């Protein structure tokens, strides 16, 4: 049975913890709002980019002039996975969800006899994947020093990926990140970057396409556009990730605060009971002492 003093200390410490988690929750909420705004501000660009890309892709069509980044190398022996996670923990299952998704993918590819290479963006994903696939990780990108993710960060990663592709280091590139659905729901997602898939946007934009003039020509524009599109996709993934991380952190910290509250209640009840017991005991001692006289 812990003494009264022990209980008092424990209550104080749980209260301190609760204060910290509460503060973290509020910080995460503020950051979440900012991250959401950033993600929203970036949306017009990526949307237009997709529309334009679909338009040109259609114009170039099955032409041989389409760049290799779009058509791929024609093989799918070597896969490159770009796994984007957060830099910090304390955000529930956010990081492990993405890592698990990537790990399942790796396992499937390895089972099919493919070669797998991994680039980790963010510390946490690296920590998790290192345990099993340390030999497959060829590079890691650290964004810990970055306060606000800018397009340059994404562009750097994009350039890295393209440089590897030009060296013939891989055939297919897939991006892993967590799609931000809402504060409580983040969905780990895999998206194929190279060869670029125009996806459902293409069908949608096709009927609106007018007869364009291209300057210089469609092929040249496409060559210019696709590397940029890769950077944009990565940028979007990073922004979604930040929003998701903050959302996950917020709900994790909310839970922690509530748990701490429950614990404090229990401890206080216990503390009061003991205090009363002690008072009763003292009273009995005094009375029985007086009776004995």
């Amino acid at each position, binding site marked *: 049975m812990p003494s009264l003093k022990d209980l008092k200390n424990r209550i104080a410490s749980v209260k301190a913890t609760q204060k910290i988690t509460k503060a973290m929750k509020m910080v995460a909420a503020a950051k979440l709002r900012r991250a959401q705004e950033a993600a929203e501000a970036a949306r017009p660009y990526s949307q237009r980019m997709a529309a334009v890309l679909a338009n040109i892709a259609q114009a170039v069509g099955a032409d041989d002039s389409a760049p290799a980044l779009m058509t791929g190398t024609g093989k799918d022996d070597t896969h490159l996975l770009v796994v984007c996670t957060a830099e910090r923990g304390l955000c529930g299952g956010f990081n492990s969800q993405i890592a698990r998704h990537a790990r399942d993918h790796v396992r499937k590819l390895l089972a099919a006899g493919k070669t797998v290479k991994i680039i980790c963006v963010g510390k946490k994903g690296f920590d998790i994947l290192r345990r099993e696939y340390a030999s497959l990780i060829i590079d890691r990108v650290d964004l810990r020093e970055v306060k606000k993710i800018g*397009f340059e960060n994404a562009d750097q990663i994009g350039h890295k990926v393209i440089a590897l592709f030009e060296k013939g280091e891989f055939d297919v590139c897939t991006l892993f990140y967590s799609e931000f659905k809402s504060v409580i729901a983040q969905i780990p997602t895999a998206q194929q970057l190279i060869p670029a898939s125009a996806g459902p946007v293409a069908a949608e934009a096709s009927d609106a396409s*007018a007869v364009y003039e291209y300057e210089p020509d469609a092929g040249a524009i496409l060559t*210019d556009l696709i590397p940029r599109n890769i950077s944009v996709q990565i940028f979007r993934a990073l922004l979604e990730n930040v929003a998701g991380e903050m959302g996950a952190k917020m709900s994790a910290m909310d839970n922690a605060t509530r748990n701490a509250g429950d614990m404090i209640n229990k401890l206080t009840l216990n503390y009061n009971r003991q205090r009363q017991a002690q008072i009763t005991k003292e009273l009995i001692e005094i009375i029985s002492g007086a009776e004995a006289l």
Partner: protein
Amino acid sequence: MADFNFELVSPERLLLSEKVTEVVIPATEGEMTVMANHAPTMTTIKPGVVSVKTADGKTERFVVFGGFADILPTGCTLLAESAVHVDELDRTVLENRIDAVRAELEGAGDEKKTRLEQFVAELTKLGEIVIPA
């Protein structure tokens, strides 16, 4: 004069979305002025100044570092890799950018090299125009 919708978008945000009467775009094959009812055109952009004349007669200038423009008779969208208002442009920012490209030049292949060299030249010229030394 007829006006049309012009949008200047960078990956980070939407810089401008307004009714304008004319826009001067530094296209790769020479500057071009876009007015309402322009033929549908898609063009890449070199680093330079975009000059926008809004419907209410004001002129605004933005510095863009490459990108491309999507022009339709009813509107024009400029997707810039990075764009800033002329007033906000800093000489150091420009110099940093030039240095970054120079660094990239070191290890680049032939074809890429010419492209990058051209890029540096364009940036330097841009610096002279926008910010008097």
